């Protein structure tokens, strides 16, 4: 039991999603080099892999700091912000 509890407290909360993650990453990597980089960016692929992987993440990602990035507006462009320090803004 102690071991179980310890396991839950480590960072590897999303390990149950590992095989879905691999499936999605393989699909993405193929799409990225074979389509996206060649100018075929009109269509998104790997949709079903992405949905399965995300569903798993939303079940297992218990860190609230991280899980909010799963929301629809979870795309943050940190690269362009001059002062991006306070994007988190979580009051203590």
């Amino acid at each position, binding site marked *: 039991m102690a071991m179980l509890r310890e396991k839950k407290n480590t960072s590897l909360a999303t390990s149950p999603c590992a095989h879905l993650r691999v499936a999605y990453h393989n699909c993405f990597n193929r799409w990225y080099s074979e389509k*996206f*980089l060649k100018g075929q960016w009109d269509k998104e692929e790997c949709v079903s892999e992405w949905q399965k992987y995300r569903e798993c993440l939303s079940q297992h990602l218990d860190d609230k700091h991280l899980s909010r990035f799963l929301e629809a507006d979870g795309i943050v462009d940190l690269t362009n912000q001059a002062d*991006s320090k306070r994007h988190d803004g979580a009051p203590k």
Partner: protein
Amino acid sequence: MVRAYAQEHTYKHPWERVTTASWRKFADPENKSTLSHILEVDTLNRKLDSTSGKLYTTRAITIHAPGPWFIRRIIGQDICHCVESTVVDANSRSMQLATRNISLQKFIEVEEKIRYDPHPQNPNEWTICKQETSIRIKPLSSLASMAEKIEQKCVDKFQQNSAKGREVMERICKYLEAEASGISI
């Protein structure tokens, strides 16, 4: 107190290959032993702007960052969650990454920005990587006198790890090069 430093590296590989390697850097299992400080990387969000050819990605990166025992005792953990946001512009051939820690912010703020662009001297075959890192240790009273020392330690650690990262990137690029010149389907 902030420590900042910049690094530049030229990959003698085209931009397309280098950015492909960047996506694989943390994902390929054969890099696990070199990048052992990376515990887990998850893609949290992704958006494709199909009119402009821009790909936005948000990933979670969990890092194992063991420090001296007194740091671990104060902080109570030795793992750190970071969020990495990436924009790839396929049209103008640029890739920008920004990574920031979102846990342990009470103690430390690390921000790393990386850009991959075609090398101005050889844009079709080489890629230039520009990296900026800033590290700030929050001056807790109990740590104030040590904060500066710790900052330097963090800088050292980050530089070691980014050298490892480059090593992995070079390895993947070589592999992709071999793959491309071999039997391509």
